[in-house]
């Protein structure tokens, strides 16, 4: 690496492009982000804890993390199957399904939110059938295992309660898992499976002992990406969540609520907790990616 800031290269435009890049990055991203950290630097420790650890806020962390985790897990499972089917099988309309996987990136979150609500509400497209089933199922569970408050955990209805949040976060997270797994599955050499078969493994053994370990780092990365996205998600969730305080209120909504009450410090304190959490998560994702590259580097 060159000892000076100016690299030796015959190509022009280094100073101009770097200067513009740094100025733009600083003005749009770094200075505004530092405003959040400076804002809480002016708070006393007591006020900070009071803002970020009040029961209602803690309930929102548990809900956001818990439901995001559940949605990311479901995405990891179904994402693997979708990626497998897209890479390995030929069927009419495969290209269309492949393109549709990116829909959650392309469809605005507010649109997704109201569409999912229209589907899963009590009188909705699917909700009119599924909602009574759900209510009955939760009732059965409560009858069999009465010492757990199932209705509060799993929600009394699908839309406007916790299951709705889960559905919205699953919708948002799917492409992350599929798009991380697809290149890895494509690169997977058929020789591996053939070798396993010659050595006497049946398909189940090949799938679980050869293919799954090979794609596991990518699966974990996709899972972590879906999880990270789900924690910060706002638009698609607020319409379907019901937003009952301390029950179905996600953390980003807490920030909005505090802002609407002109509690800028409280809002910023919660935001900083979320920022730190997502920076940690992305650091972990970065390590995961290095790990999965080491595995996939041949």
């Amino acid at each position: 690496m060159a000892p000076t800031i100016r690299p030796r290269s015959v190509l022009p435009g280094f100073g101009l492009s770097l200067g513009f890049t740094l100025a733009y990055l600083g003005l749009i991203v770094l200075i505004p982000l530092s405003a959040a950290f400076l804002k809480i630097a002016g708070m006393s420790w007591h006020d900070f804890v009071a803002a970020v650890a009040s029961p209602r806020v803690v309930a929102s962390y548990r809900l956001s993390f818990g439901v995001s985790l559940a949605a990311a897990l479901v995405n990891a499972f179904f994402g693997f199957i979708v990626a497998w089917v897209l890479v390995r099988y030929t069927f009419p309309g495969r290209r269309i399904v492949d393109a549709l996987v990116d829909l959650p990136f392309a469809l605005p979150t507010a649109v997704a939110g109201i569409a999912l609500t229209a589907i899963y509400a009590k009188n909705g497209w699917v909700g009119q059938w599924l909602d009574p089933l759900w209510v009955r199922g939760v009732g059965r569970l409560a009858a069999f295992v009465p010492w757990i408050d199932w209705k509060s955990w799993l929600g009394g209805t699908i839309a406007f309660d916790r299951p709705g949040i889960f559905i919205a976060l699953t919708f948002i997270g799917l492409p992350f898992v599929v798009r991380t797994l697809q290149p890895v599955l494509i690169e997977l050499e058929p020789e591996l499976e053939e070798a396993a078969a010659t050595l006497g493994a049946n398909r189940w053994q090949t799938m679980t002992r050869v293919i799954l370990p090979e794609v596991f780092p990518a699966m974990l990365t996709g899972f972590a990406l879906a999880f990270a996205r789900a924690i910060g998600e706002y638009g698609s969730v607020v319409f379907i969540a019901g937003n009952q305080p301390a029950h179905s209120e996600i953390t980003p909504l807490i920030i909005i609520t505090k802002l609407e009450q002109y509690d800028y410090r409280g809002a910023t304190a919660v935001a900083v907790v979320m920022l730190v959490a997502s920076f940690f998560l992305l650091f972990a994702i970065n390590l995961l990616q290095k790990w999965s590259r080491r595995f996939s580097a041949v």
Partner: protein
Amino acid sequence: MEPPLFRRLTVSAVTTAPFPVKRAPTRAAGPRVVRNPVWVRVLFMTLALGFVGIFLVLPLVAVFGEALRKGLGAYFKAFADSDARSAIRLTLTAAAIAVPSNLAFGIAASWCIAKFNFRGKSLLTTLIDLPFAVSPVISGLIYVLVFGAQGWLGPYLGAGDHPCFGEWFNQQDIKIIFAVPGIVLATIFVTFPFVARELIPLMQAQGSDEEYAALTLGANGWQTFWHVTLPNIKWGLFYGVILCNARAMGEFGAVSVVSGHIRGETNTMPLHIEILYNEYNFVAAFAVSSLLAMLGLVTLVLKSFIEWRHQRVRPANVTA
């Protein structure tokens, strides 16, 4: 696959090699030993298509179904409303400013990162991806902290007697938060990395040999860029721009924080949808949504077209 020149060190996610990956031929028709039994294939297909159908296709169909529930007349009536029109206009304005700004930034950033070696390059690459790691709500909040009435610059922006500024500046009543500039800024923030993260790996993969050749033949810097670099990166550029545009027009959380929700003035299309929906005006809400859904579909079609042209599989974007 060739080992790339520079591995990107990013906090977020160019998930695997950021390089065009040749799509291997589908191997369903491979030797019998590496195929799953028929019942497994049927099960996998059913699960995959069922999941895609329920979670992706159904919401899309629901948008158009709900929009047309009361017929075409009611559908088009939603756009006759002057608030709806001003929302559409504002969304187009915000995207028309945000996308070119981030395009210029993306080109500058990828030029200095891909063509030169300097200290702190990997840190810079990491910082460019930072906005994807931030919740949309927080993206809006930070601008309120800078420009809001109680923010850093807020007190100086309104009309008043500020000793350090000139008379002309003091007479201006500049509004950023709860006004159009704030909406534009928040949109720029959430779509910040899109173009840069497409171009950096692309330009790194292409190397600088063609630029060197152009310079040797007597071209100046701008000529080299216009006639050599730009034609090479045009598809990557277009790809980044359509993704950036889709997000810019559809952003909800960040814009919601800075907009102030003044009807006919600071409502973008997603915010207008929220208002209509909360007023139980479902047909109008879904009608406006259907426009954004069509934009999403066009984005997907263009995206697939570019991928098909270049036969590559895209790594996931972090859009958190």
